[in-house]
Every structure is written in structure tokens, then in C-alpha cells.
């Protein structure tokens, strides 16, 4: 008996491994003797200028080889005029390798520049900078400035939104459902907003070889699954402990919104860093109004438990404070890749929260998701977000 058991086990293992063996053989063949068969077409080199920093009398360009073949950086130009330059650590770039090209140049603030990099076969790549702005130095002043902006667009609006809690507490069940659905609508809008932003950043600064849209989709799904799994665990524990279910849901919502605000902070910090936006009070007001609705999203589920001011404030911080960290990172060490990743994680987190909310709404609302209050709440949520987004 044991013998046949063993042999059947061996068969299982073998049948699992055999396809892999064939994959390896095929790869070995394609890269080895079969290489000529596939030697069709001409691979075109490609580099992407991911970052351009304007420092004292110098323009610094971070270049990544995003093509299928190794390249050599050969020449740099500013506005199509050849400039002596340096490339560190060296001119040879393998796939996905980066180098820093330093171009000494007396640039003028707020003027547009086109930076060109030519590689060994004479192909020139260029990147347009709308307005040159000095690269941000991580000074205390600037850190404080970003913290203030983060507070205005993150913490304060969320806290204001939370003040609706007493109101939501007093309303009838169907109106309450309306507000829960409204929250879901708000969140859906935020998720879509994050996705749009992520795809925009990847289109602008990441090369095609990163498969921007698919990268965003993959990260969203992974983040959704990760948080969905751990969220379920949290709710399970909430049921068996003194942590009430509404609190657990509100906590998840704050985490999701926090991730979104982190992404938003990154975008704001990066925009300041690249000099592509002027921070008007109007813009801050727009962000603030927009984010006030996020407070309602946290307040709505919390309104059915005991009033826990401490917890509520903590959640407000969880949701709002990441905007400050985002602004710091975006302003001081911006990288489009991390920006895309965080925006996508935020979107995934929000989708997870929406699912949890809808589940709860379904349980609360007698297994009915198509009541007038739910439908109208959802719709109003989207609309409010859209209208306030126009201000941004």
C-alpha cells in the first residue's frame, strides 16, 4: 500500500514538474540554437528621462534604459543645442539601468526647456520641462510648508467631515442607509480618481515597457486582495472582542482614505517640486472641500456605535495625516514609479472598503441593495465628488 502511495505521489510531483522542464527546454532553445529563427525585426533602443532637476548652474537628468537592448549615452543637449556634460556612474546602460546625466547650464527660472539625450546610434530622445524650478532642498522650512499644506488638504477637511457624526446619529434608518451609500459613492469616485492619476503619471513619466495601465491594475488587485483578507480577519476579531464592527469598518475606511491621501500628497509634493503648479489659495480650498466628504465616509459607520471621540480623532489622523508624508516624499524624493504604485495601492484599498461597506449595507438593509435611499445615496456621493473635484 505504502509503495503505491509513494509512487502515485511521485507521479503527482512529476506531472507538476514536467511542464516546467519543457518551459526551460524551450527557453534554452530560443536563447541558444533557436535564436536565429526569432531574429526578425530590429529592436529599437529606448530611454526615458524620468526626472529632471534644476540645481545651481546645472541640469540633472535621471535616464533609464527602457528599451529591449543595452544603450550608450553619448551626448546631451539643452533646447537642441549640444552641451558638454557628464554621465554618472557611466555611459553604458543595460535594460532598466539608470544613470545621472549632469549638464552644466545657466538656466533661468520659470522658463521652458527641452532636454535632449542622444545615444550611440544617433537617436535623440527629449523631455520637455514646462517651467524650470530649482530642485527642492529638504530644508526645515520646506518640510514645515509641506506639513501645512498636508494639514490643510488632509487632516482639517477630514476632521470637519467627522463633525457630521451627531447629525448622522440622529437620523432615521433609511436616511442612515442613504449616508452609508453616499460614502460608498464618494469612495468609488476617489478610487477612480486615483486610477486616473496613476495612469496619467505613468503615461507622462514611465516608459511603455512598464505597461503602465496593467501595472496599475495589478497593484490595485493585489492591494484589494491583501486588505480584503486582512480586513476580514479584523472584522472576525471585532466580532469576538470589544472592538465593535462599525469601528472596524470605519478603521478600514480611514486606512483606505489614508492611502489615497498619501497618493494625493505625493502628487501635490511632486507638482510643487516640478514647479508645474502654483499653489493658490483657491486650489487649497478646492482640495479641502473635496476632502471634507472623506470625513463623512468615516463618520457614517461610526454613528451607530457609542460616541468615541478619541477613536474618531485617531481615524481622522489615519485618513488625513498621510497627505503630509506624501507631500514630503513627493517633494523631496519624487519618483514617478513609487507615485504610480501608491496611487494604485490606494485605489485597491478603497475598492476593498467599498465592498465591505456594501456588504454591511446589505446586512443592515434587510438584504436589499436597491432601495431608494441606497441608490440615491450612491449617486449623490459620486455627484458631490465630481462637483467638488472641479474646484481642484
Amino acid at each position, binding site marked *: 500500500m505504502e509503495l503505491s502511495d509513494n509512487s502515485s505521489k511521485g507521479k503527482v510531483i512529476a506531472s507538476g514538474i514536467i511542464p516546467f522542464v519543457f518551459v526551460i527546454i524551450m527557453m534554452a532553445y530560443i536563447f541558444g540554437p533557436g535564436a536565429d529563427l526569432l531574429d526578425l525585426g530590429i529592436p529599437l533602443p529606448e530611454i526615458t528621462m524620468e526626472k529632471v532637476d534644476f540645481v545651481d548652474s546645472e541640469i540633472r537628468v535621471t535616464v533609464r534604459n527602457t528599451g529591449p537592448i543595452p544603450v550608450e549615452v553619448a551626448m546631451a543637449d539643452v533646447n537642441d543645442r549640444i552641451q*558638454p556634460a557628464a554621465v*554618472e*556612474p557611466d555611459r553604458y546602460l543595460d535594460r532598466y539601468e539608470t544613470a545621472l546625466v549632469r549638464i552644466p547650464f545657466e538656466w533661468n527660472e520659470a522658463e521652458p526647456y527641452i532636454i535632449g539625450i542622444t545615444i550611440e546610434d544617433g537617436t535623440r530622445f527629449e523631455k520637455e520641462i514646462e517651467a524650470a524650478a530649482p530642485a527642492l532642498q529638504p530644508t526645515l522650512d520646506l518640510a514645515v510648508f509641506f506639513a501645512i499644506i498636508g494639514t490643510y488638504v488632509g487632516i482639517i477637511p477630514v476632521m470637519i467631515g467627522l463633525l457630521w457624526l451627531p447629525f448622522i446619529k440622529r437620523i432615521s434608518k433609511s436616511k442612515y442607509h442613504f449616508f452609508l451609500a453616499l460614502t460608498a459613492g464618494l469612495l468609488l469616485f476617489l478610487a477612480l480618481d486615483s486610477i486616473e492619476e496613476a495612469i496619467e503619471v505613468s503615461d507622462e513619466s514611465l516608459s511603455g515597457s512598464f505597461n503602465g495601465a496593467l501595472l496599475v491594475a495589478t497593484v490595485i488587485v493585489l492591494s484589494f486582495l491583501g486588505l480584503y483578507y486582512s480586513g476580514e480577519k479584523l472584522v472576525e476579531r471585532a466580532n469576538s472582542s470589544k472592538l465593535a464592527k462599525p469601528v472596524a469598518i470605519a478603521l478600514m475606511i480611514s486606512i483606505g482614505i489614508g492611502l489615497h491621501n498619501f497618493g494625493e500628497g505625493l502628487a501635490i509634493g511632486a507638482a510643487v517640486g516640478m514647479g508645474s503648479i502654483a499653489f493658490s489659495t483657491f486650489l487649497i480650498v478646492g482640495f479641502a472641500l473635496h476632502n471634507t466628504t472623506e470625513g463623512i465616509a468615516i463618520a457614517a459607520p461610526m454613528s451607530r456605535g457609542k460616541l468615541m471621540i478619541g477613536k474618531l480623532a485617531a481615524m481622522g489622523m489615519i485618513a488625513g495625516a498621510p497627505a503630509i508624508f506624501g507631500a514630503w516624499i513627493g517633494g523631496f524624493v519624487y519618483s514617478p514609479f513609487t507615485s504610480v504604485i501608491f496611487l494604485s495601492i490606494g485605489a485597491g484599498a478603497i475598492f476593498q472598503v467599498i465592498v465591505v461597506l456594501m456588504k454591511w449595507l446589505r446586512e443592515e438593509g434587510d438584504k436589499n441593495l436597491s432601495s431608494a435611499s441606497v441608490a440615491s445615496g450612491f449617486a449623490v456621493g459620486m455627484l458631490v465628488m465630481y462637483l467638488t473635484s472641479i474646484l481642484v
Partner: protein
Amino acid sequence: MRITRSNAMILLFSITAILSVIAVFPAISEAQSEPKTFVTHSGAVVKTTGEVLDPLYTSATVEFDPMEYLRDFNYGRVLQLSDGTTVREFTIIANDDEIMEVSPGIFFNVWTFNGTVPGPTIRATEGDIVRIKFINNGEKEHTMHFHGIHPAGMDGVFEPVGGNGGQFVYEFEAGPVGVHPYHCHVMPLEEHIVRGLYGVFIVDPKEERPPADEMVMVLNGLDMDFDGENNFYAANTIPFYYQHHPIQINTDELVRVYVVNMVEFDPINNLHLHGNLYKYYPTGTDLVPSFYTDMITLSQTERGIMEFEYDYPGKYLFHAHKVEFSEKGWVGIFLVNDKPTNDEQEIEYGT
């Protein structure tokens, strides 16, 4: 000598110690590669731990030597006909598969006459018979079309010479006096020209011009990315070459420059000389200069002869005053040396 155990231990220990010091202080190992420096266009000196991307050519790496081309005149194999006429025979081989490093680290497939861009400078005296044995070793059809006076059949337009060894003999009487371009005249013409199939043909007058330090400058451009715009401009192909390797001339010595503009895409080119003016002979067909100027404007294949002498030693720029071209390589320096025989009292000018 036997290596004792303790010796081996000490050796092992010291190797480990050195390696760990290098690992812990990577600065030490980096310090061994000295930072390189380079000078910017505005004169600032910049240090880098990486590599310098400066479009200057060190003579160690140059494939095509513009300094050699500058004063290289080919008079051909000379034969005398019974009536006393001089026949000059040249062999020109066309090719279209050469990869040339046109600027440091940048490689381009040039099409060449005798392996260089521009092709060899062909020189004859008015009335000589020029006989050119043309061999096309390229893959595409090529010809040689000379500007000047010759029979229709020698015009290099309607007699394309096939690749992979096709041959043709161009024979005509050299004329008129002046400086003329020659180039391939196969369609698509623009491509055959900008890829490098051109050169200079000088016809000297029977009564020689006064002795001078003579040189040839072909003003040309290279479109590296095939977008119909030049990425490089130069005098004699290599961008910035004469800026980093100044052309040495002497004070009080006549300098004669045969200039031919072969730039495509851009309707005009020009040439500005610093600290001096030159006598200019358009197309070189007249022995009396038409202009005394420091700036001439040249359209496609427009050419002429410049003559000048420097009174004061020092460095003088010459460049396109369409400064876009000069910032893309069409700029050079004349380094004027005091003539050793010049016993005039030396006066310092400037600074």
C-alpha cells in the same frame, strides 16, 4: 621555503582585513578612480566621478582626421598626351556600408567616396583632362556628378552605376577655373548627398594663384535620426573638431580657404571670421575678389574662395553666424602663430 601554518594565517588575516576595510569604506576604493574634469562652453570646470560626454575629438580616437583632410589635395596620376595636354587619372570607389564614429560615442552609417566624408579633394589645372575611374562597391546605385563644364554623358545623372563593382569612367576637360562640388546624383538625391557622397573639385587657373597656406572646408551637416533636420553641423564633418584642435596658421602669411557648402535641409549656411575680414571670390571663377567682408551667406552647393592674412597672433574663432549651427558643431579656431622670422617688436593686445 615552506609556508608555515602561522604564515598562512597571517596572510589570510591580512587579506581579510584589507577586504573588509575596502568594503566598509568604499570611498577608499572609489578614490582610486580619480574624478574627471571637463570645461563647459562658458568656461566653468566641472568635476565628475562618471564619464565625460563632451563632443570633442581627441586625435587618439579619430577615424577621419579633419586636420589631414584640410590640406590634402589630390592631383592624380599625371600623364602627358602627345600634344602636351596633361591627363590626371583618379580612382574613386563608392561605398555605402561604412559605420563612422562621427562624434565621440555616436556612430553613423555614412556613404563614402574613397572611404571618407567628404571624399578626396580633386585638383587640376584648367584645360587638363580629368579621367576618373569610378568603381561602385556599394549596394545601391551611385554616380559622380561634377559641377562645371562637361559633355552631357559625363554628367553623372542618367548613367547610374550599379553596385557591387559597377564601373564608369568620367572624362572631361577641367573647367571653368574655380572651386566646385562633386556629388552622387542618384535618387533619392537628398539621401545620397546627406549620407556623405560629396567632395571638392578645384580647378586652378593656368597662371597660378599667389602662393598661400591653402585649405579646404566643406560645410556639412549630419541628420542622425532621419527626421529631415541636421543634428550636427561642421566644417569637414566632425563637429567641434577645429575648436578643440585649432588650425595653426602664421601671421603675415596669406591663407586661402576653398569653402563649399554641402548642408542640406537648412536653406542657408554662413561663415563668419573673427578679428579679420577676407577677400571673397564667389565660386572662385574670377581672379578679382567681389567682396571684402567677414561674413558670407551660402546656399546649397554655393562656394567660393576666401583669402586673408592675420596681423596679430592669437586664437580667432570662425563659425556659422547662424549660431544654432555653431552650437551643434560648426565652429573652429585659427591659432595664429607669430612668424618666427617676424622680428617686429611684439606687442601684447587684449587682456
